[in-house]
């Protein structure tokens, strides 16, 4: 997978890396057991300090998404962490409420929001369900 960072972006670099890796895991572009680039490879590829990559990996490891096997490398965990169902639903509902209120305030209607969700799904999973809009999205 490709990771990009933007030093003057909203999030700090290690958070940008964490988010892209969790996005890839969420969308299935990174599967349990997949190997990640080493600290060294990724820091040289992105031209950022190795400690920053290490920090991102350490946090992801603490959250239970990836694991380091000594001498072999870093892998996506075979069993990903799951929050308990009630908490998860509560949080999703909260986020959905925010998304919808933001969209409605901007004058969008539900179908337009659903379309955005579908597009985001394709982006996350890298899985074009409908090839036409995918082409438009690629710059």
């Amino acid at each position, binding site marked *: 997978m490709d990771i990009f960072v933007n030093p*003057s972006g*909203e999030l*700090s670099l*290690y958070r940008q890396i964490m988010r892209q890796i969790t996005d890839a895991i969420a969308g299935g572009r990174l599967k349990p057991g997949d190997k990640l680039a080493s600290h060294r490879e990724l*820091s040289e590829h992105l*031209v950022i*300090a*190795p400690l*920053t990559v290490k920090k991102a990996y350490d946090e992801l490891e603490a959250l239970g998404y990836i694991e380091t096997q000594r001498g072999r490398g870093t892998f996506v965990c075979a069993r990903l962490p799951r929050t308990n169902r009630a908490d998860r639903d509560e949080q999703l509902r909260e986020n959905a409420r925010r998304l919808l209120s933001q969209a409605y305030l901007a004058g969008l209607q539900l179908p337009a929001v659903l379309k955005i969700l579908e597009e985001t799904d394709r982006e996350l999973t890298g899985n074009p369900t409908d090839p036409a809009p995918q082409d438009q999205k690629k710059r």
Partner: protein
Amino acid sequence: MTSILEFSNISRAYTRGVPVLDGVSFSVAPGEVVGLLGRNGSGKTTLIRIAKGMLYPHGGSVRVFGLSPTENPVAVKKRIGYVAEDQILPLRMTIAELVDFHRYLFPHWNDALQKQLMDRFGLHMNSKIKRLSKGEARQVALLCAVCHRPELLILDEPAGGLDPAARREFLETSVQLLNREGTTILFSSHHMTDVERIGGRVVLLDKGKVRLDHDVDRLREEICMATFQRESVPDGAAIERMRGCLGVRMVRDEWHAIFEGTAESVRRELQNEPGIHEVRCVSLPLEELFIELVGGDRPAELKEGVGVS
């Protein structure tokens, strides 16, 4: 863990009574990359020269690898690599002659690393120094600074005057050295995105003192800027007395105050202050933070003559 570099209460003046450095203290741990920031004339180069033993501090002390660089100059310099801002290389020499000179001075010279960097930079041994472009000369300076595998690399404005591609190449080389050699790096720079890229920590010098010493990764999360109306508080000093305030200045009719804390917590706290109603809190990229902290006039000088809007 013992530190690689330690400044304790350093002061130094070039003119009596006008300190350039006035009680600067910080230390650098092994493997750390510290970006030394500050406006022109804030004492970055002076501090670096003191670390190198090229200047005596007028007060305080410096330790490099636990040693005094003025009492043990050879022992210290053997383990340091240094690229100065506008470093002047001997123009009449070829690269080969310059490299030979360095190899003679440093017994642990690494030929493999030298060859690798020569290839990477696309330099030729028999090129004359005076024929090199500014970027190439800087690359030669870097090569000479790192091939003896220094434990501490000090770069004073390494990217000053380089084009973006050359700057990136310089950074790439630094990152590789960090990875392969575990070098500790202290570098001064005005390129904030470079500092955000490779700096683990920033130390900001202002008016002779350390104004900010913070983890780069945590800057976004732990420091924010609050803006509120001018009438909300009597003067800037009142804001500076508030908990966690790192600096304040007035921009048009608004206070811009930098606080330690997340945007959320700072906003909550400020709203409890009498007089302050509308507060906005945002996290800032390093460049904006730099400008907010050392860019503008301080409130003391602002008391009169603020009516420009």
